[in-house]
């Protein structure tokens, strides 16, 4: 159990700067997810903390002490993407690899194997295990020496969806039961939001925001983060006090600093989540709600995303729970907005949603999870 702090960590590979002064604090006993698109420097960050790469600038502090030594001195355990079990050693020998002689006999091996739900598998060889079981062994091997910090590098990405959910919950439990501090690197925002105590969003080598998952989702630092961590409806707006005038009509603003600056700037970009948009059949008597045409209906089981075109041509997305009366493509509906919106000044200097690959190129967009 230890607290990890990164101050201005920079790592360059030749001309490419993989990490640009990354700052991060991982509280003791927490699971922090480092979330970012591929190529943002997630794995580099992990390798720097583990000691596989030498950092060019900044410092890494574990419990306030600077860590600089080779990997074996840091005792920071790693669970790589593909597990990387030692193929010539049995499951028990793999798990015992990081233990000294005394703790090998203390029953720690059986203890951590039980923790990951694999008691009795000690005599198997790695090739006799399924992919999910191999990952469990890799986690057990990392936990066995009670390291101050465990690093997980997209450990679930190679598994199929149902197995992934089950395994990540089990591993979350195992980490919690063992009281470990852990960093999970992932590009899957659902994974990051669902199991982490804290999410740090990494973009182009810099941590753009870190905080509890709810904070990241509800109050993202900028439009890019907003679209990266979930489906987003981004609309241009003019600000009048605490109210934004958008294509969806008047929307109340959240009381945040950025909203204040946005109010000063008068024009802004506002964020709504698709679940804030309520759609209903067109009423017989107009009640002031916006009219829209259904363009597409994307069914996800528990809910559905409905793509809409507003009267002025703006496209937005609404989320409806399953069980709500289905809407047919091409029909007209009315849209109401629930709750408050997040606003940023429409300043070209602010990183907008026009980022390559991760965000759509129009002001209204959503990411389908």
């Amino acid at each position: 159990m230890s607290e990890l702090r990164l101050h201005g960590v920079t790592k360059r590979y030749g001309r490419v700067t993989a990490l640009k002064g990354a700052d991060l604090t991982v509280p003791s006993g927490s699971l922090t997810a480092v979330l970012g698109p591929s190529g943002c420097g997630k794995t580099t960050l992990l390798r720097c903390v583990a000691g596989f790469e030498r950092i060019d600038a900044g410092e890494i502090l574990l419990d306030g002490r600077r860590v600089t030594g080779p990997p074996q001195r840091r005792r920071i355990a790693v669970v790589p993407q593909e597990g990387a079990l030692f193929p010539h050693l049995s499951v028990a020998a793999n798990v015992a690899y990081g233990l000294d002689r005394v703790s090998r006999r203390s029953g720690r091996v059986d203890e951590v194997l039980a923790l990951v739900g694999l008691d009795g598998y000690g005599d198997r060889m790695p090739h006799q295990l399924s992919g999910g079981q191999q990952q469990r062994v890799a986690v057990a091997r990392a936990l066995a020496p009670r390291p101050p910090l465990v690093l997980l590098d997209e450990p679930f990405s190679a598994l199929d969806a149902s197995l992934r959910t089950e395994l990540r919950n089990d591993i979350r439990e195992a980490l919690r039961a063992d009281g470990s501090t852990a960093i999970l690197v992932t590009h899957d925002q659902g994974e990051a939001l669902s199991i982490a105590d804290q999410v740090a969003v990494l973009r182009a080598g810099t941590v753009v925001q870190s905080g509890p998952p709810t904070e990241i989702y509800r109050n993202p630092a900028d439009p890019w983060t907003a679209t990266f961590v979930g489906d987003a409806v981004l609309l241009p707006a003019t600000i009048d006090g605490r109210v934004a005038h958008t294509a969806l009509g008047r929307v109340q603003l959240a009381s945040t600093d950025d909203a204040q600056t946005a109010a000063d700037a008068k024009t802004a970009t506002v964020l709504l989540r698709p679940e804030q948009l309520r759609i209903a059949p067109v009423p017989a008597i107009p009640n002031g709600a916006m009219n829209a045409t259904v363009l597409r209906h994307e069914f996800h089981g528990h809910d559905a995303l409905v793509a809409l075109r507003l009267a002025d041509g703006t496209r937005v997305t609404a989320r409806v729970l399953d069980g709500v009366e289905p809407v047919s493509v091409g029909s007209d509906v009315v849209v109401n907005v629930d709750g408050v919106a997040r606003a940023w000044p429409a300043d070209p200097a602010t990183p907008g949603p026009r980022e390559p690959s991760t965000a759509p190129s129009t002001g209204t967009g959503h990411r389908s999870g």
Partner: protein
Amino acid sequence: MALIPLIYLAVRTGEAGVARVIEELWTARVAGLALRSLGLAVVVTAGCLVLGVGSAFLVTRTDLPARRLFGVLASLPLAIPTYIAAFAWISTVDRFEGFWPAALVLMLCSYPYIFLPVAAALAGTDPAQEEVSRSLGHGAWRTFTGVTLRQIRPAIAGGALLVALYVLSDFGAVSIVRTDTFTRAIFISFDLGFDRTGALVLSSLLVAITVLLLTTETVTRRRGARYAQLGGARRAPIQLRLSWARWPAVAALAGVALLALGVPALSLAQRMVAGVSRPGTLGEVATAAGNSLLLSLAGAALTMLLALPLGLLTARVPGPLTTALERLSYLPHALPGVVIGLSLVFFGINVAFPLYQSVWLLALAYAALFLPLAVAAVAGAAGQAPPILEEVARSLGRGPLTVLRTITLPLTLPGVGAGAALVFLTCMKELPATLLLRPTGTDTLATELWTNTTVGAYAAAAPYAALLVILSSVPTWLLAARSGILDKEGAT
């Protein structure tokens, strides 16, 4: 270390002066030698490619009857030194002399250099890539040339390089079938002349040709996947049904085996009847066998010791420097054993006198000669231990030495063992350097054989030849088993 012969060569050629070198070089005889040596290398390599890749494909990828037997038969020619094979042919077939007979003998003796790595690669390739190719509408032939051949290209290229280098440096076979190549001309100059400049210049030219060959191979080599796949169940490769073609295939493989193994075996057996009947021979044969084993063991041990760091470096830290190091270690392999031998005599007398006339100087010669075989084996084996495993081990608190002992070595040891077996085998067969460097009074199977054949005592030579072949078969068997072609799972 591997460079001692090269330094010797450079020093002595330099002493001779430029004018003298040019005078030696610009003669019709040198041009003829160069053409014949290169021609021999090209013809033998091409022949070995056909024999080696063809038999490897038949053995690993088809429903050929008795596949494991043919696997062993295709590996066994490694146990037969070229001079024994040439001797067997010349004493069986009349007027067996000149370029084509030399090419035939060398081809039959060295195609296992291609068969073994290619068979191992074919048995280990990922069938998914071939399946994808088939599903994209490519037929069996296009899949083979477009996907399979590319997957096994490193194995083919490595094997072909070994064959070409081997042909350039072979001495025994070309001497016996009386074909003038560089090596034979060098040996004769060394043997007869008081002035060795001619031989040195020829050796330098041979080194230059080798450099050319190695550079060509490097330039054409493409970067591929370096590491074995982790996880996921490995499936057996796709098998081709031969149907009616199986009997011609069996006949072809049996024919090659008969030529490569049957002729020497028959000839030796005939001579044996006369050979062992002479009194006192058995004790001598036993002593020679003991010496052979001891010297080869020392040579293999020293070679592997030198090859381990070099091979690991080549696999782990790819870069211009390591590539250059690896390539340099290939050079002495193409030098005739005579040049290596004499250069080490020079080195022993002038630099390291305590080593002179000791087993270790000969072991050093073996190491210089066969380092590339060992380095290739170690580098290949290191691919079996991806770096991520070492990183994980270090993150679990183990220092570099412990990681080497508990992770890297156990994973690479099987490959390293195969390399050691190959080096041991080649040391057993080595002739010219052994002749020059063995401690006085120490006779090995190879030298006794040579001494007896040069005086025409074919019958007396036969038992040594037979024992040499039998002893060499053991590491050859190990190599064949290691390549996976004898696996029972593979046969079903």
